[in-house]
């Protein structure tokens, strides 16, 4: 026996057309996002005479091969694990021997700054290298704005500690937070930059978003990532790798082919992206920036101040 169909929905139950369309847009938008990946803002920048004319590495090399132990010790791990990191909001504590200490929002640090593209060689202490088109501005710009007091001799930096988002920090692989430092004259040198991007776009998280140091004549580990604190001090600051193994990692850690790491030679390097038969190239004194920075170390014995 056929039963009669009795509708239990009224017109009031119908989804209004506007809401219905909106939902479709949302879904379409989400789909587009998941295909294109997170939207990255293009940065406005000017070119710089400090750039090398060497061919930069592929962006996939730069984004896919990272030493960022906060996100794992494997080279490919940061590109996966760093994506959880919240980089907005971001504030940097600036303290110590400065005229205007305080917690600065990243936007305040960047306001009025002219971003430059600096294509630099990057030489890792592990004897590999890349060429990276950073976007950033001289650290000296910031230091001048906050006013360095005459007694200050060094700049100390710290990376964010947030084990919930930085999986590597759940293990005592290194003594967190990651710490680095520069002598004031090194920090004020025009080659020393704070970078907020690369390849014309915002800094990928695995490369040290949202703001990191780049000191091209030193081994890569000096160029501290995801900075949350900058302190001016009159004492040589503690630095992470030096704390971990003082014999192997000095405070200066200038790229120097004549001073070997105790466990491996620094005379040559493997350029990432060269493939299986790319071979090696000679490492240059101060990573090729000798004419610019050798003067900083006049009178110093670089085998002692390694």
């Amino acid at each position: 026996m056929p039963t009669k169909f009795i509708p239990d929905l009224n017109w009031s139950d119908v989804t209004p057309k506007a809401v219905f369309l909106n939902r479709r847009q949302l879904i379409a938008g989400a789909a587009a996002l998941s295909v294109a990946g997170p939207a990255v803002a293009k940065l406005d920048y000017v070119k710089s005479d400090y750039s090398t004319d060497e061919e930069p590495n592929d962006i996939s090399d730069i984004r896919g091969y990272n030493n960022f132990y906060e996100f794992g010790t494997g080279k490919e791990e940061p590109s996966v694990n760093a994506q959880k990191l919240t980089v907005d909001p971001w504030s940097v504590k600036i303290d110590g021997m400065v005229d205007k200490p305080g917690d600065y929002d990243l936007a305040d640090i960047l306001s009025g700054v002219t971003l430059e593209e600096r294509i630099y060689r990057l030489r890792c202490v592990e004897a590999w290298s890349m060429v990276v088109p950073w976007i950033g501005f001289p650290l000296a710009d910031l230091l001048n704005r906050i006013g360095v007091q005459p007694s200050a001799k060094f700049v100390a930096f710290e990376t964010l500690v947030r084990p919930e988002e930085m999986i590597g920090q759940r293990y005592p692989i290194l003594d967190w937070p990651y710490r680095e430092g520069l002598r004031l004259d090194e920090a004020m040198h025009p080659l020393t930059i704070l970078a907020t991007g690369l390849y014309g776009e915002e800094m990928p998280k695995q490369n040290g978003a949202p703001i990191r140091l780049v000191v091209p004549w030193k081994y890569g580990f000096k160029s501290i990532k995801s900075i949350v604190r900058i302190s001016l001090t009159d004492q040589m600051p503690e630095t992470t790798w030096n704390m971990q193994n003082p014999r192997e990692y000095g405070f200066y850690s200038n790229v120097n082919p004549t001073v070997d790491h105790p466990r491996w030679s620094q005379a040559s390097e493997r350029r990432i992206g060269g493939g299986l038969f790319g071979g090696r190239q000679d490492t240059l004194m101060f990573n090729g920036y000798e004419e610019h920075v050798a003067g900083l170390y006049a009178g110093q014995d670089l085998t002692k101040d390694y």
Partner: protein
Amino acid sequence: MTLTDRINQAARRLPAWPIYIVGVLLPVWLFWQAASGALGVDPIKALEDRLGLWGLKLIVAGLCVTPLRRFAGVNLIKYRRSLGLLAFLYIVLHFLTWLLLDLGLRWEQALGDIIKRPYITVGMVGLLAMVPLALTSNDRAVRWLGSARWQKLQKLAYLVALSGGVHFLWLVKAWPVEPFLYLGAILGLLAVRMIPKRFRLAA
């Protein structure tokens, strides 16, 4: 029938030669992957690491054979030669990758590294200790040396394993877990060999 009996029965039926075939194909596959970009943007390092690690795995596997027979009654002795020879092959390829592809035959730097860098020195000791083991891995060598002397010579495998474990731990930065696990396994496998024979557990 116990699990031990089943494994032993299967081992009687399964010959060792397929291990050689699979074992030789692995480096070919790794090399192909490295050349085609499948091992990432630093293929030389990746190939070097993988060959070294597979070599170390096989060395550890080879060290397991005797304790397995003594304490668990599992007899896999007929496979031990293939494990050892393949380990030798991988470590030789690991060395050649370093010398030819990584250092690009920079002899001066290579020799300097072997002499001055303790972890490379230790690695070379391990590789050299494998040479007499590989050379005497055939039945003729056993007959020529006599069983007792041959067995004594095979104890070099302990030095090989220790060198390999130390080499791995010594080359890493910071303190990742993996090299400790390998060295721990090697030390453990050597330690059980020091248990006096009267503690034999299994039939």
